[in-house]
């Protein structure tokens, strides 16, 4: 029972902390983000296993974590409000070449990041070439170019 409770506590704590730190944490992974993920894994390992390093305990912990993940996905697929709370919603940052400063500030994005996404995805270099820039739930910025007149 202890293995299941440990896995459950760690799953809830990690889900909450990653949700608090914001969806952008999981996109644009830098070298430091990668190291951070390794350190988080290392820090949770002991708490997950305790002093029991048996194969049985490892299997129980993995089964609980995967089971929780499947259960959460199942609930999200059937209950839209849960999906919104856990995943968030897309946010429009630029419309018809006009950046929306309030949203950009609140989403903790800079205009240069939007332009970077526009360059990378469509080779656009100016804000007025963007029809829509949307901060997706995955943390990426989707850019839709304006159609040529």
């Amino acid at each position, binding site marked *: 029972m202890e293995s299941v409770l440990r896995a459950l506590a760690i799953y809830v704590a990690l889900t909450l902390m990653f949700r608090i730190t*914001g969806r952008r944490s999981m996109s644009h992974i830098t070298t430091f983000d990668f190291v951070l993920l390794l350190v988080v894994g290392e820090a949770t390992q002991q708490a997950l296993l305790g002093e029991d390093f048996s194969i049985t305990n490892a299997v129980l912990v993995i089964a609980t974590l995967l089971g929780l993940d499947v259960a959460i996905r199942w609930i999200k697929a059937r209950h839209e409000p849960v999906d919104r709370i856990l995943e968030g919603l897309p946010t*429009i940052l630029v419309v018809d070449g006009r950046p929306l400063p309030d949203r950009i500030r609140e989403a903790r994005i800079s205009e240069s990041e939007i332009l970077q996404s526009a360059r990378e995805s469509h080779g656009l270099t100016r804000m007025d070439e963007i029809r829509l820039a949307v901060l997706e739930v995955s943390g990426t910025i989707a850019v839709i170019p304006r159609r040529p007149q």
Partner: protein
Amino acid sequence: MSDPALDEASRIVGEDLAFQRKVWRFQRLGWFGMAVLILLAMAGAFGGGPLSYASARSDDGALEVAWERIERLGRSSELRIRIRQLAPGPLELRLEEGLVEDVEVAGGQPRPVSETRAPGRIGMRFEPPPGEQWAEILLNLRATRPGLVSGTLAAGASRVRVRIVVLP
């Protein structure tokens, strides 16, 4: 002010700005919560800092104990005991109740000359330091379950109540 282009884009994308603003507010509260957590951790609210240190003295003043009142499961903490030698001969130290059932003694200094165990009680006998009025004994404690541990430490007729909150 209504913006038709924005409203249309918002509808296509499935945006709900009011909801998203709530999420951002929740995140800001979360950052504040994490900052408070870090400050509390530095102050020792989760063990290992000034807030967690406790000390007590027996009514007759012959037994002094300093310990960490907040502890974490799997981490060993130190119980620092000072005993005034009222009579010549070996020092007898007794751990009772929660200090026997919910905590294990994982070493210490000096090593006891002998140890006894009965239900709800551990007895330890130490050689007294020659020529000193006070003897000092360090015990490393390791909690075996989370929750409140409440026990008594006794030497002769002197008794000190020790309470430890063990975090999971």
